[in-house]
């Protein structure tokens, strides 16, 4: 019951936040120089005033700014993200077509980075000061300092161009008409490079955090007590330290997972991955206002969703945390 109320109030807050984001971004994108009608007309290779006027009218850009804003917000309230005049389709449809690819990419990257990050962090903490620890922490530092897009370029160069092991771009083999397991494997093959390059940076973050957190917790009193009781090293690590050390890592990860969804522009561009990050970037250049705003709102919703999930997970793992936390 308490949880239900907490969730409800979170949802209300979330809705208000989303609305505020919609308004703020509406101002932002409309402040950008350039006009979708001129872009669209321009691309036709010729344009006259009549055509641009006609387009502006169709896009609703001839109306006063506050009317446009009002209409947009009213639409959002009704779960209507508007229409993309450039692509001739409802924004919700455009995003729905692209979101699965983004989710697949980011969640895979997230899963890999979290699992490997924690595992490596624990391993490094257990061997603190030894050569293997130094090696792991150095590697983590290195990945932490590497520009993601550059790593992606280099990975394509090595693994798909020089070695030819993996496809360097795309979501699946086009026109192969694979079904079932073959299709799954095909998508997986395309997924490896983008997911790994996207995941490596976060893996190094989680690894460093886990390691630090493990060492910190191992200094705490209850661990000393457990040790005094004669429990073995691995048992303490598993039962006492890990459980406590992992909480802050999971929290941070949860906060980042949502950000990942809107932040995969670079990876999607380098790997020609048909996701919403690219959709946003391409729409921006064309000033396809509704589509840009739609992507913003959807990715912000993802951030909020992951925050709520993190919160719930936290609550289940650690029931001491109250509803106000």
């Amino acid at each position, binding site marked *: 019951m308490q949880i239900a109320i907490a969730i409800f109030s979170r949802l209300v807050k979330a809705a208000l936040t989303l609305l505020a984001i919609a308004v703020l971004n509406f101002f932002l994108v409309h402040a*950008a120089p350039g*006009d979708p009608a001129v872009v669209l007309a*321009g691309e*036709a290779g010729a344009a006259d005033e009549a055509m641009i006027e*006609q387009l502006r009218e169709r896009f609703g850009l001839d109306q006063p700014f506050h009317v446009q804003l009002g209409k947009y917000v009213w639409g959002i309230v009704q779960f209507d993200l508007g229409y993309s005049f450039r692509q001739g389709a409802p924004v919700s449809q455009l995003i729905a077509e692209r979101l699965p690819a983004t989710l697949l990419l980011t969640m895979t990257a997230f899963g890999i980075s979290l699992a490997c990050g924690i595992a490596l962090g624990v391993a490094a903490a257990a061997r603190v000061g030894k050569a293997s620890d130094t090696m792991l922490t150095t590697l983590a530092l290195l990945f932490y300092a590497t520009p993601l897009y550059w790593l992606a370029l280099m990975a394509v160069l090595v693994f798909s161009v020089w070695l030819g092991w993996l496809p360097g771009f795309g979501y699946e083999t086009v*026109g192969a008409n694979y079904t079932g397991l073959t299709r799954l494997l095909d998508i997986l093959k395309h997924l490896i490079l983008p997911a790994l390059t996207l995941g490596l940076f976060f893996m190094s973050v989680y690894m460093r955090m886990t390691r630090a957190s493990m060492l910190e917790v191992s200094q705490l009193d209850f661990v000393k007590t457990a040790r005094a009781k004669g429990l073995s090293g691995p048992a303490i690590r598993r039962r006492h330290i890990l459980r406590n050390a992992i909480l802050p890592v999971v929290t941070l990860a949860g906060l980042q997972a949502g950000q990942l969804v809107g932040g995969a522009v670079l990876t999607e*561009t380098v790997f020609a991955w048909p996701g919403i990050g690219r959709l946003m970037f391409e729409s921006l250049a064309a000033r396809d206002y509704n589509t840009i705003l739609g992507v913003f709102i959807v990715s912000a919703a993802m951030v909020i969703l992951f925050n709520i999930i993190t919160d719930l997970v936290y609550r289940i793992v650690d029931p001491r945390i109250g509803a106000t936390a």
Partner: protein
Amino acid sequence: MTYLKATTFLIAAALAAPALAQQDGGRLDIVVQPEPPGLMLGLVQNGPTQMVSGDIYESLLRYTTDLEPQPSLAKSWTISDDGLVYTFKLQDGVTWHDGEPFTAADVVFSADVFLRETHARLRSSLAYVQSIEAPDDTTVVFTLKEPFGPFINAFEVGTMPIVPKHIYEGTDYATNEMNATPIGTGPFKFDKWEKGSYIHLVKNEDYYVEGLPHLDEIFYRVIPDAAARAVAFETGEVDVLPGGSVENWDVPRLTEMEGVCSTGKGWEFFAPHAWMWLNNREGPTSNKLFRQAVMYALDREFVKEVVWNGFGTVATGPISSKTNFYSDDVTIYDHNPDKAKELLAEMGYDGEPVRVLPLPYGETWQRWAEAVRQNLSEVGINVELDSTDVAGWNEKTSQWDYDMAFTYLYQYGDPALGVSRNYVASQIKKGSPWNNVEGYDNPALDEKWNAAATMVTPAERETAYAEIQKEIVDDVPVAWLLELEFPTIYRCNVKDLVTTAIGVNDGPRGAWIEQ
């Protein structure tokens, strides 16, 4: 005897392509960059849309690489001696992709109703048209108000795509649901568009030309990164890189690969012509001496060799050498920094900085702007590079907020269609980046441009345009740079892909793959 005598072309001539061992079947993967915003060619006419939809839609004519008209939906045509009446005989047994019969009524609807409303470029040609009529189901008659030489070039698929009347009549064209699944008469039918990945077209089994098309299917592939596009070609994922889809410095490497061919043909109709608009209204660029100094300061040969990797031709003036009525009897501006400095000293240039706006179309254009900045600073001109994206570029140029701005425009085979619009004063209109953006105002020349458009014989026009070119080149209203060449790179086993003046746009119709 007038040059424009009544002429009849027969379909047999056009189809006389060697019927050797053309093999049916196979699929073609072609890069399309950027992803088109829509495929309804009557509504959207940007480059990528023309490339994909040129297989789905058709117009009355096609054009050889020498800009000679060929039959398409029209099997023959005549032009009256006074150049006023164009009569087209349509093909028999043509159906739309949804099975409905195609008739002359569709042509009248497209040209007179639909495109008049949606197609700005065609609208300016249609201004010369008195009436469009269909005396019977297979005949269309265009009657002009006055002779308009270039009118015969208006029947290209991107200029006058024929759209289905039964789907669009009486509807709101822009929001018609059928726009998502375009219906044309062309050799390929729309099958599927996986947004962000590919567009799939399949063979039109009921195509009215016996034996065509040869290919079973085409995939237009969307790959946003230029380097990834090159990799896709290398690894065999795609078969065709249309002009401009990879950066120029990749071209030699790709064409040196085994079994890879390339051609510079297939752009004759467009003849893309690059220049910098020099703002004639204000600042140093409003001074003719300054503009001439810019021409002498630029090392266009270097740009052609290094930035464009040897592709293209240094432009001599407003008209491309590939377009009709080109003349090279003009002042030639070579790379001469000393001369440029002299001119700057003569005008008393005080070092006022000029802003250069590059075209946001990828690395080649960025490098080009950087090279220009270098050239100009060598003769003492202070340059600042502006930066913006496609929308910002459109805004700045159409609102005249620049000093020098890169651009390139298509010429559509005739100065009256694609050239004069950039130089006549009646085309000085804020809000569009496709007209006289530089603000060049020369009434004496305006008259000559207008007269040349409506002269009846090509010989007369030839003389008129030669005179115009000679005069305008001395004025330097814009800094002409290069006649661009966009090589199409393809695997050599793809045959007969580029056979017309619009190349890949309508090439797959007769293309075939050697097994």
